[in-house]
């Protein structure tokens, strides 16, 4: 069965490389950003048809060098595929899960349908007589094609690795783990998702260009749904995420294709069964089997003996006024969760927001941080009206927050969580990461350094290498605080920071909060632990049924009759 000649082997290897390029793009989308696409063949087709059109249909002037049509077709094919990727990404923002799968499937079908209906693109016959690619005197066919295709894989792998190691990769990872928390950490999640679609599209287009140049023709069936499914199967088979799984998957499919004639219809049936088995039993694919030992292990760190409270990592930004809420009202159906609330915070103070469960405290936090919008009124953060802004843009003004149920990036280590928190202090953009500009690397080091120092400051360094999902509830809360601090915020909103903490952790939290206030950070807390609230607050605001019923120093609020009745006098004694 192995008695195949070299040319056949070479050919199978070439196809494997071509598909690996497209599969790496999908692997990034599926594994690193958790977005599914069953429409990748559409991009493959856009790239392929662009090249075929420019090399086989367009008549070039005779004085044009021989390599130009191929190079122009490749570049334009990649660019068009990327542009359509942006478009699909934009549409994809509206969907998740199976709806996203269907929308991408529709995209792929539309591309095939359009090329099949289009006369200039050859209708159902497609475009044949695509000439071999020439680079100078070299004709890219046979062995040269094999090496060209694997050079494409090399280039793709390099760019993808750069991207994943950079700020972009950290943003992807955060989005995959918890989109909302990523957004609150200042990561523009929509932009990154769109970029991921564009990048995956560009790679599929890149693969498509050379596929057509190598095969010498393109027809609608070659870029149909089954190619999209094939690519998905390759990625799942090899293991989604990063480069190696996709390459392994594409190679396996390429090699089995070599014996395709012996296997006939058994081949896709076996793929189908393999994918079901892998998805159920080995969700990390074949690559996951090899790298199982390299998975981040949860183990305690050895160093200890850090000073109790270290100096701040960097001075927080200064503002005359960090937060003003003006007549904020938020309704859920008939329920008024926040009812005409107005207040502003004095810089460098610690204010606690208390009130019975259901009083609207978290709703107010969400409105301030851009996660839920107010129906009426205005929110001003750092002097800017943020009433209708998305969370990441509010965060970029210097606002950090934690969540009531501690939304850490569960599959990342404590250190990685803190590094992701430093996103706003980094500068590298998508293209800087892609080509590996120095800023990409310096960012990586700076973010790590910054994260280490924040962990050190909060005494969390011993946990640095633990996975977030393995932490106790109290530890999670403190790591979440560290993640918020890593962005160097001027205003910090903490939602029940003391809930779930043991006595020692509680004391530590109190001292940390005092230290943060001393640094000049403006703090707003939701907290039910009255002792802590009374001990550390400069000011206490009380919310009941969405209305502010008291506002003043701890001593004043403690003796306010309205507060006493809110907590003790009515049916809702929930504390």
């Amino acid at each position, binding site marked *: 069965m192995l008695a195949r000649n070299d040319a056949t082997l070479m050919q199978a290897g070439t196809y494997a490389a071509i598909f690996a390029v497209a599969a790496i793009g999908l692997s990034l989308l599926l594994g690193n950003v*958790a977005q599914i696409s069953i429409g990748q063949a559409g991009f493959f087709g856009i790239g392929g048809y662009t090249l075929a059109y420019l090399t086989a249909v367009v008549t070039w002037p005779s004085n044009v060098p021989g390599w130009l049509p191929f190079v122009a077709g490749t570049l334009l094919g990649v660019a068009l595929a990327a542009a359509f990727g942006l478009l699909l990404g934009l549409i994809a923002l509206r969907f998740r899960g199976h709806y996203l799968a269907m929308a991408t499937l529709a995209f792929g*079908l*539309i591309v095939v349908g359009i090329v099949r209906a289009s006369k200039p693109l050859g209708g159902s016959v497609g475009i044949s007589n695509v000439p071999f690619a020439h680079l100078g005197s070299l004709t890219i066919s046979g062995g040269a094609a094999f090496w060209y295709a694997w050079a494409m894989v090399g280039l793709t792998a390099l760019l993808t690795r750069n991207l994943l190691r950079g700020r972009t990769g950290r943003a992807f990872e955060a989005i995959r783990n918890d989109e909302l928390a990523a957004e609150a950490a200042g990561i523009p999640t929509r932009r990154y998702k769109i970029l991921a679609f564009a990048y995956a599209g560009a790679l599929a287009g890149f693969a498509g260009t050379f596929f057509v140049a190598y095969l010498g023709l393109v027809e609608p069936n070659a870029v149909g749904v089954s190619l999209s499914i094939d690519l998905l199967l390759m990625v799942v088979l090899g293991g989604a995420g990063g480069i190696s799984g996709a390459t392994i998957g594409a190679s396996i499919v390429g090699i089995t294709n070599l014996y395709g004639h012996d296997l006939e219809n058994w081949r896709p049936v076996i793929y189908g*069964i*393999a*994918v079901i088995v892998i998805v159920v039993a080995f969700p990390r694919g074949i690559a996951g089997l090899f790298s199982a030992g390299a998975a981040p292990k949860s183990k305690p760190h050895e160093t200890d003996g850090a000073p109790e409270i270290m100096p701040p990592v960097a001075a927080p930004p200064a503002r005359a006024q960090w937060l003003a809420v003006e007549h904020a009202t938020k309704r859920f159906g008939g329920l008024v969760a926040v009812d005409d609330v107005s207040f502003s915070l004095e810089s460098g103070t610690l204010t606690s927001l208390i009130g019975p469960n259901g009083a609207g405290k978290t709703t107010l936090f969400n409105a301030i941080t851009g996660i839920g919008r107010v129906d009426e009124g205005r929110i001003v953060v750092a002097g800017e009206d943020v009433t209708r802004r998305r969370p990441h843009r509010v965060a970029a003004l210097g606002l950090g927050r934690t969540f009531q149920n501690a939304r850490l990036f569960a599959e990342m280590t404590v250190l990685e969580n803190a590094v992701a928190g430093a996103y706003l202090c980094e500068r590298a953009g998508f293209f800087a990461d892609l080509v590996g500009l120095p800023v990409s690397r310096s960012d990586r080091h700076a973010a790590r350094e910054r994260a280490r120092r924040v962990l050190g400051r909060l005494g969390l360094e011993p946990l640095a290498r633990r996975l977030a999902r393995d932490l106790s509830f109290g530890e999670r809360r403190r790591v979440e605080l560290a993640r918020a601090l890593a962005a160097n915020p001027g205003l910090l909103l903490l939602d029940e920071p003391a809930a779930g903490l043991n006595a020692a952790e509680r004391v530590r939290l109190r001292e940390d909060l005092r230290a943060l206030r001393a640094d000049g950070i403006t703090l707003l807390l939701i907290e039910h632990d009255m002792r802590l609230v009374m001990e550390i607050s400069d000011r206490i605001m009380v919310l009941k049924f969405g209305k502010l019923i008291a506002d003043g120093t701890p001593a004043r609020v403690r003796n306010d009759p309205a507060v006493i009745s809110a907590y003790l006098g009515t049916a809702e004694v929930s504390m």
Partner: protein
Amino acid sequence: MLAQLAQLVIAGLTVGSGYALVALGIHIILRATRVVNFAQGEFVILGGLLAYGLVTTLHFGIWAALAGATVLGFAIGLLYERAVLRPAARVGELAVTIATIGTVYVLLYGHALIWGSLPEPLVFFSGGATDLSWQILGLHVAAQQVWIIALLAIALAALWFFFERTTYGKAIRAAADNPLGARLVGIDVDRARAISVAIAIALAAYGGTIVGPITLVGGAAGIAIAIKGFVGAIVGGLESPLGCALGGLLVGVVEKLLEGQFSYEIADPVVYSLLLLMLVVKPAGLFARPSAVRD
């Protein structure tokens, strides 16, 4: 002109009935398990082939083959739920979606291994190898077209009766709408899900058998039927059973009108664009209440 349009509408309702049954199956599985079964169309093809096998190999009459294929579909559905959907659901939503796509390959190429890759004709429900037909008001109406629409209506009525009027059907709906609550009142939620999937696959097999004489059975038609069934479900509203049925019929009519009035090539891209357009503009579907969308 008008007669020609009416003729196209009849043809559209006929193929649309197949799409409607796919859409309904997708709806039933989605409702019970929160999974979109991308392989639903393949089960339609499988159903047609099972009926074909019963007729040609075991010499069943076509009505016995319809009953046989439906029962076999039910059994295959139970197996599918147990072997594929349930284990994948433990891993996550993305995993189930991918597993149903893997199933597409197993079925699409699997039945070619058994029955060959060329489509086969199924006998007509009245008349055997050739169909009866009539001229009514200048329209050509084939008996199979009448059977298809009537059998779709019967299936819809049976489903409605089961899910709305029987205790068992109501228990299944309760399990789908509120699994925890259903468990608390003693409903076996896993079993309810399995039964739902089995009903959906039985419906697919039933659909494959009734449209089989017109569309032929087998071959690579499954993907197209599956996708147009999806389009129907999305157009009508994934969360609404009646919406799914109407959406499927509508897609069939639109497809035939486009094919008849413009060209065969233009129909597919337009129908698929309809899918994307509906997803973007009105994901709840034309016939669903807005509150019915959960994702």
